[in-house]
Each structure stands twice: as C-alpha cells, then as structure tokens.
C-alpha cells in the first residue's frame, strides 16, 4: 500500500493514477461545489451557537490562507516559508490603519487593498532577488525573512506595540452596516473565501497555471517551451503574497486586534498541513483541508491533557500524510478540456508552422495528414540558412564536450546528426536551445544572433525540441502537456485569466484545438486520451506527446532528439514516415538518431559528430 503511494509521489506516477482516469463517471464538479456551498450556508443555522459560528469564520480565513499558499507550494512546487510573514504584514497593515496606534482610522474597504498592496510590494522586494537562486535555497531565504519579520514585530515597540499587539481595531462595514456578530462575520468572510477559491481555480487552469505546473514538474522543459522561469516564479510568489496579505487583513478585522502569536512557525506548519492534507495543487482540496484541520483542533479541545500536544499531533499528521498519502484526501485531477475531438477533426487537421500553414491543404476529416501534402515546399537550398552554427564549443570542467562544431540548416530540409554515444550530439542541441551557454562560437537563427540567450527566449523565436530522455510534465493531462507548447503565442496574463474574458476563452479554445490537431497527427487514439494524465501513456505515446508539444509551439525548426529510441520496429517505421510528413508540412527538422535506418531513410543531409567535432 505504502509502496504504491510512494510511487505516486515519485517519477513513476502511472500505477495509482490509472484507476482514476474515468473522470466522466464522477459527480460533476459544479454539483459538488453547490452541495458544499449549501452546507456552508446552513451551518450557522444548524449549530445555532456563536462559538461554532466563530469556528466557521476561522475556517474561511484558513481557506484563503491555504489557497494562497497552494499557489506557490502546491501549484508551482516551491517551498515558501515566508508566506506567514506576508500574513503578518497584511494583518499589521490593517491594524496600523485602523487603530489609535497612529490615530488613523481608514476603514475596512480602503485598508484591505492597502494590506494586499503592502504584501505585494514586500513580496517584490524579497521575491525578485530570492527567486533567481536554486529552488532549495528559497526555503531558507524565506524562512530567514519570516524570522526577521517576526523579530521586528516583537522588537520595534513604537510601531507594533511589541508582544502586546495592537487591540481595538475598527470593524468592517458592509453597505453601512457594521459587521459585529459572529453570524455576520461568517457570511461576510465566506464571500471572500468563495471569491478567493474562484480565483484560485481559474488561475490553476489557465496559461499561467500551466506555466507554474511546468516549473513544478520540470523547470528545464518549461523553459524550453517559452516559460520565463524567474518571471513566473515571482508571479506565483506575489499571487501567494497578495492572497495571504488579504487573509491577514481579514484576520485583524475579525479579531479586532493583531498579536505576535498569530504569526508563528507553528502556524506556518499548520497551513502546510491544510494544503497537503487536503490535496496540494487542488483548490477544492485546500478547502477540505481547512475544514478538517480546524475541526480537528476543536475536537482536541475536548481533551484538556491533549492541548499541549497539539503541535506535536499536527506535525505528526503532516509527517504521516506526506509519506503515506502525498496527494492528500482530495487529490488534484487532470483538467477536463472543453474542446471535443470530433469538433476539431471536423475542422480539418492541417499541421505545420504558421508561416506555411496559410493555404496549406487540409486533410480529410478523421485522417492524419498524408505524406503527399505538397511538392511546392521542397527544400529551397541556396537561400540564407534558417539556422547557422559556427565554431560552437563547450567544456565541462576539463573535458571538451563539443569543439568547433559548424553547420547550416536550410529551410524545409531534414538534417540528420549521427555519431556514437557521448559524441556530443545532445550537447549541441542543448547549446542551440540555450540550456547550456556555449564557451565558443555563435548560433544564428534567421540571421539573428541567439547565442547564449535564455531557453525561453530562443523557444519564442520558433525553435522547438524534444528530449532524448522523455520529459513530459507528469502532473498534467495529455492535452495540457501539448498546450504547454502554446505558451509563448498565447497572451493572457493573470488578471484576464481570473476574469476569463472572451478573448481568453477564444485563445484557450484555439490552443486546445491546435493541441488536439497535433495529437491527431499521430492517429486517432491519442486525442481520445487527451484528458488523462500523461503518465498513463506508454513510452512511444509519450514520445509522440513530446513531438506534438513541440509542434504546438508553432515552430519553424524542430529539433528531435532520438525520437525513435525505445520504439519497436513497426513504430520506428511509422515515426520515420511521420517525420517526413512533418518536413513536407513545412517544418525544418534537425534529427539526432542512433538507428541508422531511420537517419538514412529520412534525412536529406547528414552530418557526423564524433568526439565533439563534425567529421562529415
């Protein structure tokens, strides 16, 4: 049992995921949301006690706090230990603006945006520099930041009143009515919680959410498909800071006071428990986590001897959950896409780079494009090369991995690159696509020098690649994996995704259709599995998903790194034909391959690389 859960958390995700692929047989999500909302609405009427209604308010605050943390930790996969500092900043901002401390009484509705803004500004200051460094260090930098904030709260008496906190804050108002009773707070705060939940859901299933998930699952691949890593890390960090800052403001307004003991290491661990117990990455899971955690705490109050053990029990549960049930009680599921396969196939399945697609013939519905697409797109040699590599070199330590590699690739051709293991073929790819910075030499794409540019910028120019050792995003659906390729030509940012404007809907629809079309290039079975986790696919299908993802980038140049590795002879023949079809559809292709028959039958031209140098 434990073993399979472990596998679930690790690289071998397939085993446990397989049984839950029949998403359609489940209760629709809107029904579950409606049932939960009804329960929330009737709760105060049922319990009829101020005490339990106040507990319900605490749950609402935890829902906001947990969904804030879920963005950076669950969705983006970064260990942020500083979020409690932003919680404190939100709360103290509210307190300072609504108390006799500085005799400012700004009121609830004006203060709340300031709380969020204060958290975001401080988030920028700490986030921009710290999110450049390696992932593991983020934990310690943010922990140190949290510790400093905690120390300042206690020591800067003049502002924060030190250990005593700031009491007697202004209460919120709602259309002139002062929010005072627990029941008023309860409904008022659950509106906030619902809005935050809604924002979280929309963000998770948006272009931004896919980029975040890409960072969580595989940074290098995400970067190779146009995701600007520092930018999206900071964006995630700030989204968390903003939501957590809001939670802080609400906490202060609810307690009508702020106290240093609201913002402790224990609280930090508790919110992590909420996210992980509920199901990290899943906003609905976080809501469930918040409910379970709060009521567990209340339950423990019935046993006075247990109270001192509270944090020990909380951390023990967290430990057990992360080891035995890492996906939580309500695990994240693959997104259900809105575009149906039939619809797309009806429209035709022409594939190709954008520059060639206009006027490209459309294949018969239901059929992948045939090889006989066009003769007018035959290699047009003699013109300027599409990609020109000159004197490329790279050393690792003292080892010369690649030395003085030069070649040109012309539009519309397939260039085969062969050579023995360790000859430096993949390294050449990594140098071209910006994963490594070359020590010597230049790479020019369409006459523009792209040497040493970051992977995401090179990808956005129209270079797409596949990886030798398959790199798909294990926690995304097949279609979302393919749509990750669309990142650079989609435009929607955070705010438009939250509002889901018509332009965003249109854009997502286009990307889904194009993704399905590119999957359909490999036959009709793959598009049917678009809403399953990519990890349930077999090896050959994952390779196809990689190629489809690369096609969705709308590249002019495709770099295929051993696309036939690990395939059986029939599949090898099939993929060889498909590579030729891709060329005929207008893609220029560089193909690294070990299997001589593939290279010989497919390539228009071949170069041989050995010991890091071009031989022929």
């Amino acid at each position, binding site marked *: 049992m434990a073993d399979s859960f472990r596998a679930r958390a690790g690289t071998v995700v397939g085993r446990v995921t397989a049984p839950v692929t029949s998403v359609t047989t489940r209760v629709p999500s809107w029904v579950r949301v409606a049932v939960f909302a009804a329960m929330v609405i009737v709760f105060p009427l049922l319990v009829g006690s101020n005490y339990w209604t106040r507990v319900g308010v605490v749950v609402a605050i935890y829902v906001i706090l947990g969904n804030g943390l879920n963005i950076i930790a669950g969705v983006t996969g970064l260990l942020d230990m500083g979020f409690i500092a932003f919680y404190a900043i939100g709360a103290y901002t509210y307190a300072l603006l609504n108390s006799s401390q500085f005799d400012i009484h700004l009121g609830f509705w004006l203060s709340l945006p300031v709380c969020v803004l204060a958290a975001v500004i401080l988030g920028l200051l700490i986030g921009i520099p710290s999110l450049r460094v390696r992932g593991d260090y983020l934990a310690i930098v943010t922990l140190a930041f949290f510790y400093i904030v905690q120390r300042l709260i206690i020591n800067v008496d003049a502002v924060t009143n030190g250990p005593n906190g700031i009491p007697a804050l202004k209460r919120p108002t709602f259309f002139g009515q002062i929010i005072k009773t627990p029941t008023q707070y309860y409904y008022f705060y659950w509106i906030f919680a619902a809005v935050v939940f809604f924002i979280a859901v929309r963000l998770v299933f948006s272009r931004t959410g896919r980029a975040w998930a890409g960072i969580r699952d595989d940074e290098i691949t995400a970067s190779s498909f146009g995701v600007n890593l520092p930018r999206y890390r900071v964006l995630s960090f700030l989204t968390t800071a903003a939501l957590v800052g809001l939670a802080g403001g609400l906490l202060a307004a609810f307690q009508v006071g702020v106290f240093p003991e609201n913002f402790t290491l224990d609280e930090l661990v508790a919110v992590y428990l909420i996210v*992980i117990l509920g199901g990290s990455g899943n906003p609905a899971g976080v809501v469930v986590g918040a409910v379970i955690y709060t009521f567990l705490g209340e339950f423990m109050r019935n046993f006075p001897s247990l109270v*001192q053990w509270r944090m020990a029990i909380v951390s023990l549960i967290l430990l057990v959950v992360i080891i035995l049930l890492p996906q939580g009680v309500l695990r994240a599921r693959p997104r259900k896409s809105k575009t149906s396969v039939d619809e797309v196939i009806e429209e035709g399945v022409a594939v190709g780079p954008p520059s060639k697609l206009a006027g490209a013939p459309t294949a018969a519905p239901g059929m992948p494009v045939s090889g006989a697409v066009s003769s007018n797109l035959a290699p047009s040699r003699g013109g300027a090369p599409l990609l020109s590599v000159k004197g490329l070199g790279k050393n690792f330590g003292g080892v010369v991995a690649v030395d003085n590699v030069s070649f040109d690739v012309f539009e519309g051709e397939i260039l085969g690159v062969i050579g023995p293991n360790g000859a430096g073929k993949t390294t050449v790819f990594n140098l071209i696509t910006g994963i490594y910075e070359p020590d010597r030499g230049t790479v020019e794409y369409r006459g523009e020098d792209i040497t040493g540019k970051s992977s995401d910028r090179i990808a956005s120019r129209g270079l797409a690649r596949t990886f030798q050792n398959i790199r798909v995003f294990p926690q995304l659906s097949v279609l979302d994996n393919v749509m990750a390729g669309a990142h650079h030509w989609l435009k929607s940012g955070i705010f438009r995704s939250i509002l889901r404007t018509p332009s965003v809907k249109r854009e997502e629809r286009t990307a889904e259709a194009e993704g399905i079309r590119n999957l359909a290039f490999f036959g009709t079975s793959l598009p049917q599995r678009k809403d399953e986790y990519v990890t349930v696919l077999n090896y050959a299908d994952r390779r196809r998903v990689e190629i489809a993802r690369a096609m969705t980038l709308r590249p002019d140049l495709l770099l295929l790194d051993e696309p036939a590795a690990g395939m059986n002879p029939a599949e090898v023949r099939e993929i060889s034909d498909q590579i030729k079809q891709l060329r005929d559809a207008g893609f220029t292709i560089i193909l690294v391959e070990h299997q001589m028959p593939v290279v010989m039958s497919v390539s228009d031209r071949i170069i041989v690389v050995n010991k890091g140098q071009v031989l022929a």
Partner: protein
Amino acid sequence: MTQQLVNLLTLGSVYALFALGYSMVYGILTMLNFAHGEVFMIGGFMAYMVQQWFLDGDQLTAPPAVVILCMLVVAMAVCGALAVAIEFFAYRPLRNAARLAPLISALAMSILLRNVVGVLTHFRTRPIRTDLLLPNSMGITIGDVTIGADRILIIVVTAIALIVLEIFMSRSKMGKAMRATSQDREAASFMGISVNRVISTTFLVGAMLAGIAGVLTGLFYTQVDFAMGFALGMKAFTAAVLGGIGNLRGAVLGAFVLATAETLGSYYISFMYRDVIAFALLIILLLFKPSGLLGKPAAVKV
C-alpha cells in the same frame, strides 16, 4: 582583543560542529535537513539528563571530567541513533519523490521533535550547572585576561572532533564511500557501495557532531531549552552555505567567518539584532553567492 578572539573561536567551534551535519546531508541528498537543529537540541538535553544523574543537591558525585565525558558519549549515542531513525522513517520513503515532499517531511519532523521535547520539559528552560562542572578556577589567565574553562573545553573538544572527522573522511573506507556517494550516488551504487548504509552513516556522523555541539552549547549558555535548535540551526546552516554547502572544510571555514561577523556585529552595532544580522547575511549570501566560498556552482543535467 584576546577576549574577542576567544569568543570568536568559541562561537565558531559550536557553529562548525553543528554546520557539518547540514553540509554532509546536503552533500549526499541535496536536502535541507530541518530536523538537524532539533537533534542538536536533544544533545543539549542529554547533557542536562546526565548532569541530573550525577547531581546530589549542590554537589557532583563524580569528577567533572567523568561527567562531561559521560555527557558527550550519551549525547553522541542518542543523537546518532535518533538521526538514523529519522532518516529511515521520514526521509527514505520520500527519496525519489518530488522535491517538495522531503523538505515538508523534514519540517514536520523538526516541529514534532521540538514539541515532544517541549511537552516533556513543560516548555521551560533547564539549567546546566557549568559552575560545578567547569568552575572558574579551572580557567587560564594569559596576561590580564582570564579564559574560562568552558571556552577552553569547547575549543579543545571541537579541535579533536574535527581532526577525527578529517581522518575518518580521508582514510577510512566508509569515508571514501561517503565522498564518492556525494559526487554521484548512482555511480557509487554501481561500484558496489551500499548507498543506504552510506546515507545512514552520514546522518549518524552529522548527528554525533551535533550532539557534541549541543552539550557544549548547554555548558556555554548554562541552560538548555526546547527551542534552542531553531535560531542556532539557521545560523549553522548559514555557515554551511557560506563555506559552500556539501564542502566539509568549507563548513568549518564558514562557521568561523560567520562567528567573526557576528562578534564584530554585536560589538559595533547591537547585541539585540545579532540574529537579524546573521539572517540578513544569509539572505544576501544566498542571493549573490549561492555557491559559497569554497563551493562549486551546481551543474544542470539534461
């Protein structure tokens, strides 16, 4: 001046012993072992426990040297066993999981240990009778400066521990296996090295050093409490990063650099903000020189 130098050496010694554990574990598992601070804290409580065995009213029932030796041995044994158990139960199941999982596990383990010890000690500090164990009369006077016996003990014990560690790492078969595993775990396992045993040993050795550091810190501050692992742990980690995490000599160097910065900082700026200075240093360091003084930048594998 002499006094400041001794302070610096004392502080640096404790940081060094403590930082080595972080650095060793990070070197092999590239994981931040949050629970290491709690292992250190439990080392401090072992000193208290042993002291209570030998304490009769206001008198020790055995020579101080015997008591201190007992403290060190018990702390090393308990901390070592505890760390091996932590690795086995909390980290090993997650070794191949997504990178967030082991960090969360370590964080939870840290809070768990801290609270268990907290409840058992009623969340109160416990005194260490340094006045009986290392009375002032045992100090050495150089010129007009008297160096307390506690400081001498800390520096001497640390020196011995570091020399033993250096010999262990460079001469013994296990030490070589540990270095090999930290460079490439997979290759090491192909060479017939039992990676699980190496990792257990790493936790064992790191925790034994932390146990020593816990005892010495208890003797130095004349008290121990359940929360002492956190702030000091962060600083020890700073030292490890400063020297280049994964690099053991670097960790020792980093410890003394940090101790120097703190000694000067609290002398010239403010004692109250000593921790804030150390953490600000940590943040700046991680942002601008994450590979540390002696570390190598990490290679990306594709």
